[in-house]
């Protein structure tokens, strides 16, 4: 029987302060304008923006104080992700500060403190096909004496083009489809035999296919235990899913805010279009969708902070809801803007594209809804 006080789903004072600070900073930084400029120049990363975020401690939000972090927890990380989502601020936050920080916690402390400082960035290379699935991992890590040789390819790795290091999930035993026999390697991205090909992602962000051609590794490169890689990577994936869900919720709120402003501003038939009941009801329905999702997001953060090992249901619920809400928010966003919403000059398109990419990242609606059903049975 749990003796814990049921954690309130309302933000604490510290969390509210963090949100205000993040919102204030991002309002000044104008990430949307930066994203557009980068897209136009063909750049997929914004190291300058990330340096400023790291200077505010965002990179260390999940890292313990001994390693230079603030250990504010997953709800706080979610709040940062939401605020970044709202403005489409682009950074390696989820890959490095959330996933790598979670995977490295209690292990490689020099790397962890570098992550917390924002000096070291990671990509998490797990998926090999078009849908998220850890068990189908086929990338082989074959034993050669007391060394390993990695051969295979990871697809569409987020932040994979620019990351300093890569956590790669490889197969040292078992067969694709099985959860056993997986091992996580922590490798520098420029190790011999690693080849990275940038993908031209619709959201203009860094995504890369990473090929491993006879890459040599040793036991020192293994994170966790050989053959039990799922245990080593799962907490990181789970934390990442919660952060991406939060980002999607923020993205929905950002698209919605633009839409509501437009409803008040744009006039047709001599009146603001927001006075038309058909549009009022669609906006109100969408807001309701967002409110319900916001609860799942807050709950996922609380559940991870409370007991990460039992939080998968809460996290999958959050990711499923967030994906669903974001789909609706961007579709309605375009529709209620009319023609202007279809133009590249308008920002709504960036929200549409990022929503689609973030929905696929670490499992889409169907993946997580099925998880929810399985875990509830």
């Amino acid at each position, binding site marked *: 029987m749990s003796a814990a006080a049921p954690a309130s789903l309302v933000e604490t004072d510290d969390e509210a302060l963090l949100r205000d600070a993040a919102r204030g900073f991002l309002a000044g930084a104008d990430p949307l304008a930066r994203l557009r400029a980068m897209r136009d120049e063909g750049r997929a990363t914004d190291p300058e923006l990330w340096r400023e975020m790291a200077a505010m401690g965002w990179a260390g939000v999940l890292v313990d104080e001994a390693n230079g972090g603030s250990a504010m927890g997953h709800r706080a990380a979610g709040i940062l992700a939401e605020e970044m989502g709202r403005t489409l601020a682009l950074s390696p936050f989820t890959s490095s500060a959330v996933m790598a920080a979670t995977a490295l916690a209690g292990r490689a402390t020099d790397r962890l403190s570098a992550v917390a400082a924002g000096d070291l960035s990671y990509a998490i290379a797990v998926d090999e096909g078009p849908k998220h699935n850890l068990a189908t991992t086929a990338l082989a890590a074959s034993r050669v004496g007391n060394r390993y040789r990695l051969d295979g390819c990871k697809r569409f790795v987020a932040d994979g083009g620019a990351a300093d290091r890569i956590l790669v999930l490889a197969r040292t035993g078992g067969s694709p489809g099985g959860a056993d026999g997986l091992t996580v390697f922590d490798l520098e991205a420029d190790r011999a035999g690693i080849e990275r090909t940038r993908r031209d992602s619709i959201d203009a962000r860094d995504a890369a296919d990473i090929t491993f051609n006879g890459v040599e590794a040793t036991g020192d490169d293994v994170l966790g235990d050989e053959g039990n890689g799922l245990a080593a990577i799962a907490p990181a994936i789970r934390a990442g899913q919660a952060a991406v869900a939060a980002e999607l919720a923020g993205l929905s709120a950002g698209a919605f805010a633009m839409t509501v402003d437009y409803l008040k501003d744009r006039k047709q038939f001599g009146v603001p279009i927001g006075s038309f009941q058909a549009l009022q009801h669609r906006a109100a329905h969408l807001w309701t969708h967002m409110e319900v999702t916001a609860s799942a997001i807050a709950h996922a953060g609380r559940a991870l902070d409370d007991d990460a090992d039992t939080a998968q249901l809460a996290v999958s*619920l959050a990711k499923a809801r967030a994906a669903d809400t974001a789909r609706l928010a961007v579709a309605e966003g375009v529709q209620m803007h009319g023609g202007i919403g279809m133009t590249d000059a308008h920002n709504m398109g960036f929200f549409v594209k990022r929503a689609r990419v973030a929905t696929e990242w670490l499992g889409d609606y169907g993946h997580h809804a099925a998880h929810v059903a399985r875990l509830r049975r």
Partner: protein
Amino acid sequence: MVVDNALAHFRASTAAWLEENCPEPMRGAGWSEDEICWGGKRWQFTSDAQRVWLERMAAKGWTAPRWPTEYGGGGLSRAQDKVLAEEMARIGARTPLERIGLRMLGPALLEFGSEAQKQRYLPPIVRGEMRWCQGYSEPGAGSDLAGVQTRAEDAGDHFVVNGQKVWTSYADKADAIFALVRTDRDAPKHKGISFVLIDMESEGVSTRPIRLISGKSPFCETFFDDVRVPKENLVGELNGGWAIAKYLLTHEREMIGGGARGLLGGRAISSILGDSGIDDPVIAADALRTEVDTLAFGLTMERYKDAAEAGQGVGDASAMLKYAGTELNKQRYDLMMAAGGSSALTWDGEGALAPEWLRTKANSIEGGTSEVMLGIIARRILELPA
């Protein structure tokens, strides 16, 4: 993890008390509207267990866990209330008493009632001794509620009430009605309404049941023909009834939104379907979606209760809770009917789902329609132009 010793102790003692005091027949999921205890002077308990369960819970004030003990309530904090609900859900304990008095009139009296009114009306509500009904809607005043025409004329120490209400749930079984009446016909429509309490046994009150598509007759037309209502039964200010009406509606909407039993404490819908051996990809997909939405909505009810505890009133957001909860409940019942196939198509028999499914169609009408809820969200929360 915050470990709170006092709360841990409360949880342990509550679990032990429930274990000892909740009769076996009052436990278990999946109970129908017929098994709800509504209380009231004329209430016939459906079983001894139902009576005992109500008496024991009422003695602790746990039929109204958050109300002050001075009015018979449980005086529990939000955290304790959550624990009580969790422990009741764990053993499948039924709600001992529903709900119009507890969930609608009670909160309004606590906020707007005089001390004498609180002393007089709240304790019998807690004990299930007085059953209430709601006299808002009229034939000409549905969504446009402020258009009520039932009038109350000042006759010195009392009012004389004449007019008609409609859709009055359980008017034929209730002991008293709280009603919106027009006390100033010249004022703008929102400003001439008063909120009064009327004994259903008063001379001149009559009811006529209306049969629903679900086959039941839970609601009535209610007629007032020169009914004398003592002035002490006026709640709040004369002509100040609209504010009370709206406050009560926010509670009603929150209640209707989260009210469906199956929604919050119920079994996973996917497991219900799984057990029935259905192999239909569309039903399976609908079940996944409904499951996700149900859990997320339950958390939203929790989040808003947490916010209320933190001093942020639910207010207009009750429209969102009502809209989301009722549309979801209809979706759940559509799904269960599809899963039930022909076994769900009879009035009687196993589970008798059909009447409940038909009843859910009213969820998005009663207490304000979904369209009215969307309008409230659009104008009051999103501040879209009129």
